[in-house]
């Protein structure tokens, strides 16, 4: 990333993505803040990134796709044949 105070949208969105996982350097945090103040698209990106991160965790608890019945039958017949440990 270049050294000047102004960064591009591409760089700003990269910093947004890194922000939660890694502690950004003070200078990068400032550059991001300045960019977000001026750029409504990157501000939206930041907000939407937050929503995505929040919602994605719920995929672990919300059942979206059920197992097809034929797959269940295949697995049941397979595990029926397995010998249980003594």
């Amino acid at each position, binding site marked *: 990333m270049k050294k000047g105070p102004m960064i591009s949208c591409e760089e700003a969105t*990269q910093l947004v993505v890194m922000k939660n*996982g890694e502690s950004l350097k003070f200078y990068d945090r400032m550059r991001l803040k300045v960019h977000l103040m001026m750029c409504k698209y990157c501000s939206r990106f930041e907000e939407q990134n937050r929503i995505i991160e929040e*919602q994605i965790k*719920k995929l672990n608890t919300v*059942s979206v796709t*059920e197992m097809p019945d034929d797959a*269940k039958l295949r697995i049941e017949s397979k*595990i029926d044949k397995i010998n249980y*440990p003594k």
Partner: protein
Amino acid sequence: MTEKEKKDSKKIASLFENYSDYLYNYAITRVNDVHIAEDLVQDTFVAAIKSIKNFESKSKESTWLTAILKNKIIDHYRKKVNKYHQESIDTLYNTNEYFDERGSWRVDQRPADWHLGSGHSIDQKEFYEILQKCISRLKELQRMVFVMKLLDDEDTDDICKELKITTSNYWVIIHRAKLQLRKCLEVTWINN
């Protein structure tokens, strides 16, 4: 069949009835292939039968089964990772689709207003279906990085080690994946 075997087999049958959908959903979110997801769930129950002795001491059935499945998924990822070459990683870096030469948003890629005011709830099944679909459209390595970080909350260093990528590769892959996922959600969910 001994009494013990009968009891164990009844136990497994009830675990299968209660958790097969949950485990399948868990697997399909992470591997995006119905056959592989089926195999992983099957392997999970085979492993569960073999270690059913250990189960008695465990407290929660779903936690125990999910832990087995999670290990199977990581094994699957490891096999995949060994097939990757540097050039396939390079294509995951490209953000030209989203930004012009100066690094500004291309006009047709600019994030739209999602109109999600405070209090607006997105707890709808439809949203999660679309989210799952959008994740499935990520390239394999992107999806692996994404799933390990955002769904499983794994440590960044561990992810890099497991998937054999550098930390800077990691951030670029996450960046690219986020851009793609955001766009996919906007097109398929928000605009609907």
